[in-house]
C-alpha cells in the first residue's frame, strides 16, 4: 500500500488556470437577450407576444402615416393623390391639413406678423423659471427677472402700451414703499394695511392717467391683440401657465389655512379645497361660461378667456394647496421647533425657514399639477374656446377639410405628448435629485 500522494489522488491541479471568457451565449447581445428576453419558456412566449403586438401595430399604422399628401389643399385633393398612388382613398393620411393649418393650431388667430411675441415670451418663460428649476446652474439674481416676467409676458402677448404694465408694476413698488414706511411708524400690521391701501389707491387713481400721460409723451407700444385671437397651443399654454402662477400664492395661503389652528379659517380653507376637488373641471368651466356673468355686478363683462383663467386658477389652487400641504407635512418637526426657538413669529418663520424648504420639496408635485392643468385645458373646447381641440372642430367645419379626422388628432396628441413627457421627465429628474440630497 503506497502512501505517496500520486497514488492516492489521481490528479491535482497545482497551477492556476488562466481566466476564461464567459460563454458567448451569456455576454454581448446574445447574453443580454437571453437574460432579458428569453429567460425561461414563459418569458420567451411573453417576448414573442410583445414583438407580435408591436409588429402588428406598426404594420397597421406606418403605411398610413407615410403618405405623400403634404401639398394637398383640400380633402378631395388628398383623395385624388392617394387614388393616383393606388392605395385607395383611405389608405393614407391627409397631411395637407397640417401643412396648411399648423400655424393656426399653434397660435390660433394671433396675427402672423407678431408670432415672434409668443415665441419670445415662451423663451423668456424658461429664463424666468430657470432659477427655480435649475437652481444649481443659474445665478439666483435671475429671480428679479422672474418677478418681472409676468408683466413682461402680459405686455408681449396682449400688446398695447408699454406704460400700462409699467404703471401696474409701479403699484407694487408703491406698496413696498408704504410697507417699509408703515412698519417703521406703526408696526408690521399697520405697514401691511398701508401697503395694500397705497397700492390699491395707486391702481385705482394714478395708474391709468399716468399710463396715458406717459404714452402721449413717449409712445412705446406693440400691436394690441385681443384675447379672443388666442388659440391653439398658445391658448393652452397661456391658460396653463397663468393658472399655475396664479394658483401658487393662493395655494400657499390655502395650505397654511388648512394647517392653521384657527378653526374657522381652517374650515373655510378645507371647504374651498374639497369643493373644488370634488366637482369636475367641466362644471367649473360651465360656471365660467354661463354663470360668472350672473354672479358679478350688472354691467361687468369681461371676456371669456379671462373668466376661464380665473376658474382654472381657482381649480389649480385647490390642487396646489394639497401639494404644498404635502411639502409642509414632509418637513421635519425640528425645523418648526428651531424657528420657534429662534423667536421668529409665524410669518417670519414661514417666510424664512418653512416655505423655502417646503416649496423646494413640492416642486415635483407642482410640475405634475401643471401637467394635469395643461392637459385639462383641452376641456375649454367644450365651452366654445378655440384650444387645439376646439380649433380641430372649427377646421373640420371648413368646406375643404370636412371629414378629416385622425390627422388633426394625431398632430395635437403628439404635441401634447412632447410637452407633457418632457415635463414629467424633468419632474422625475428633480425627484431623484431631491431624494439623494435629503437623506
Amino acid at each position, binding site marked *: 500500500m503506497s502512501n505517496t500522494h500520486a497514488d492516492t489522488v489521481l490528479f491535482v491541479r497545482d497551477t492556476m488556470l488562466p481566466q476564461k471568457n464567459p460563454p458567448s451565449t451569456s455576454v454581448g447581445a446574445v447574453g443580454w437577450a437571453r437574460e432579458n428576453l428569453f429567460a425561461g419558456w414563459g418569458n420567451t412566449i411573453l417576448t414573442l407576444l410583445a414583438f407580435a403586438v408591436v409588429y402588428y401595430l406598426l404594420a397597421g399604422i406606418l403605411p398610413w402615416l407615410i403618405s405623400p399628401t403634404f401639398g394637398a389643399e383640400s380633402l378631395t385633393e388628398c383623395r385624388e393623390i392617394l387614388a393616383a398612388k393606388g392605395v385607395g382613398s383611405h389608405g393614407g393620411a391627409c397631411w395637407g391639413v397640417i401643412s396648411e393649418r399648423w400655424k393656426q393650431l399653434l397660435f390660433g388667430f394671433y396675427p402672423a406678423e407678431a408670432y415672434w411675441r409668443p415665441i419670445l415670451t415662451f423663451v423668456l418663460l424658461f429664463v424666468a423659471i430657470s432659477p427655480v428649476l435649475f437652481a444649481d446652474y443659474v445665478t439666483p439674481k435671475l429671480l428679479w427677472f422672474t418677478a418681472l416676467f409676468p408683466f413682461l409676458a402680459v405686455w408681449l402677448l396682449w400688446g398695447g402700451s408699454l406704460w400700462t404694465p409699467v404703471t401696474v408694476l409701479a403699484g407694487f413698488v408703491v406698496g413696498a414703499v408704504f410697507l417699509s414706511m408703515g412698519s417703521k411708524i406703526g408696526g408690521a400690521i399697520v405697514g401691511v394695511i398701508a401697503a395694500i391701501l397705497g397700492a390699491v389707491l395707486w391702481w385705482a387713481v394714478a395708474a391709468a392717467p399716468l399710463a396715458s400721460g406717459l404714452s402721449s409723451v413717449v409712445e412705446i407700444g406693440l400691436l394690441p391683440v385681443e384675447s379672443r385671437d388666442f388659440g391653439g397651443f398658445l391658448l393652452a399654454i397661456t391658460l396653463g401657465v397663468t393658472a399655475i402662477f396664479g394658483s401658487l400664492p393662493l395655494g400657499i395661503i390655502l395650505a397654511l389655512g388648512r394647517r392653521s389652528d384657527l378653526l374657522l379659517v381652517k374650515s373655510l380653507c378645507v371647504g374651498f379645497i374639497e369643493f373644488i376637488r370634488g366637482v369636475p373641471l367641466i362644471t367649473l368651466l360651465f360656471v365660467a361660461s354661463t354663470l360668472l356673468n350672473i354672479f358679478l355686478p350688472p*354691467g361687468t363683462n369681461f371676456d371669456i378667456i379671462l373668466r376661464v383663467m380665473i376658474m382654472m386658477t381657482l381649480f389649480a389652487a385647490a390642487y396646489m394647496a394639497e401639494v404644498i400641504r404635502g411639502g409642509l407635512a414632509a418637513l421635519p418637526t425640528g425645523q418648526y421647533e428651531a424657528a420657534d426657538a429662534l423667536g421668529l413669529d409665524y410669518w417670519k418663520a414661514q417666510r424664512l425657514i418653512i416655505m423655502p424648504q417646503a416649496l423646494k420639496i413640492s416642486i415635483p408635485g407642482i410640475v405634475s399639477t401643471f401637467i394635469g392643468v395643461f392637459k385639462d385645458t383641452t376641456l375649454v373646447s367644450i365651452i366654445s374656446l378655440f384650444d387645439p381641440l376646439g380649433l380641430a372642430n372649427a377646421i373640420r367645419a371648413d368646406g375643404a377639410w*370636412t371629414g378629416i379626422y385622425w390627422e388633426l388628432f394625431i398632430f395635437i396628441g403628439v404635441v401634447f405628448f412632447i410637452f407633457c413627457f418632457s415635463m414629467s421627465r424633468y419632474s422625475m429628474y428633480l425627484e431623484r435629485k431631491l431624494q439623494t440630497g435629503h437623506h
Partner: protein
Amino acid sequence: MKKSVFFGALTVAGVAAGAAAAGTLDDVKARGTLNCGVTTGLVGFAAPDANGEWEGFDVAFCRAVAAAVLGDPKAVEFVPTTGKTRFTALASGEVDLLARNTTWTFSRDVDLKFDFIGVNYYDGQGFMIPKSLGVSSAKELDGATVCIQTGTTTELNLADFFRKNNISYEPVPIETNAEGQAQYLAGACDAYTTDASGLAATRASFENPADHVVLPEIVSKEPLGPLVRHGDNEWGDVVRWTLNALIAAEEMGVTSANIGDLSASAGDNPEVNRLLGTEGSLGEMLGLSADWAKSAIMAGGNYGEVFEKNIGENTPIGLSRGLNAQWTDGGLLYSPPFR
C-alpha cells in the same frame, strides 16, 4: 373705448350692456366693433379660414350689420358660442347680436327674453340615409339608429315625430356636425338628422354624395334668425332693418355691382332711393348715417348674393333657394316696405 384697465386681458366692455337698460347701439358705436355670436364652426354658415378670417352665411350678416352701424364690415369680433353658451352670451351682453342659426320658437322669444328680428333662413329638420338602406320615407325608420346633434331643438322634434308615428328609434346624441358625419359614414347610425341645410352641406362633402339621399319628410319648421336682447328696441330695429335691407335690395335688383351707380345720385325708383339714402332720412331715424343700407349691401352683396356666395348652388354645399327665394319667386322672403 375704454380698454386695458388692468392687465391687457381685462377687456372691460365700457359701460357694458346689462340686460335691457343700456343702449346697445351706442355701445357698439363707442366700442367701434360689433360683437357677434356665431357657431364654433358649421360648414357654409360660419367657420374660420386658414388666416383666421371668418366666413359664411351667418358671418356675412354680422358683417352687414357692422357695415351699417360702423361703416366697416371688418369691425366685427366673432364670438364662437355653443348651443349651451349662446343664450348666456347674449343675455349677459357679451355679444350684441347672435347670428347662429337659432330657431325662432315661442319659449325662446317669450320665456328666455330674446327678440328674434326676422328670419334669414327658412329651414326644416330632415333625415339623410344611405341609398343602400332602401328606405323611401322617414316613417319606415322603425327601430333605426338615428344620429342627432344635441343642443338644438332637433332632439325634441325627433322625439315628437317618432312618438306621433308610434315607431321606435335609438337616438345617438352627437356634439358636433363633424362627429355626426364620421358616425354616419361609418354606419354607426342608419340615419342622420339635423336641419336640411346642414344635411345638404354634410352630404356635399362626402366622397360619393350620390350614395346618400335626403328623405322627403321635413319634420319641423326651423325658421333660423338673428336675435338680440329683449327690450332694446333701437338696437333691434337696426338689426331687423339691416336684414330687411339685404332682402329688399335683392327684390329691387340692387347688387354690389350696380350699387355704386345707383347710390351716386337719386334714380327713378323712389324706394331704391330711400333705401340707399339718396332720398328721405331713413338712416337718421335709425340713428345711423344716411348710407347705412348702402354700406350693409356693399359688405357682401344683397341677400341673394350672400346666399349664392356661401351656400348657393355653385358652392360645394349646393343649396337651392327653395323657401328662401323672394316672395316674387315663390319663396317666403318678404321685406316690409322702406317708407
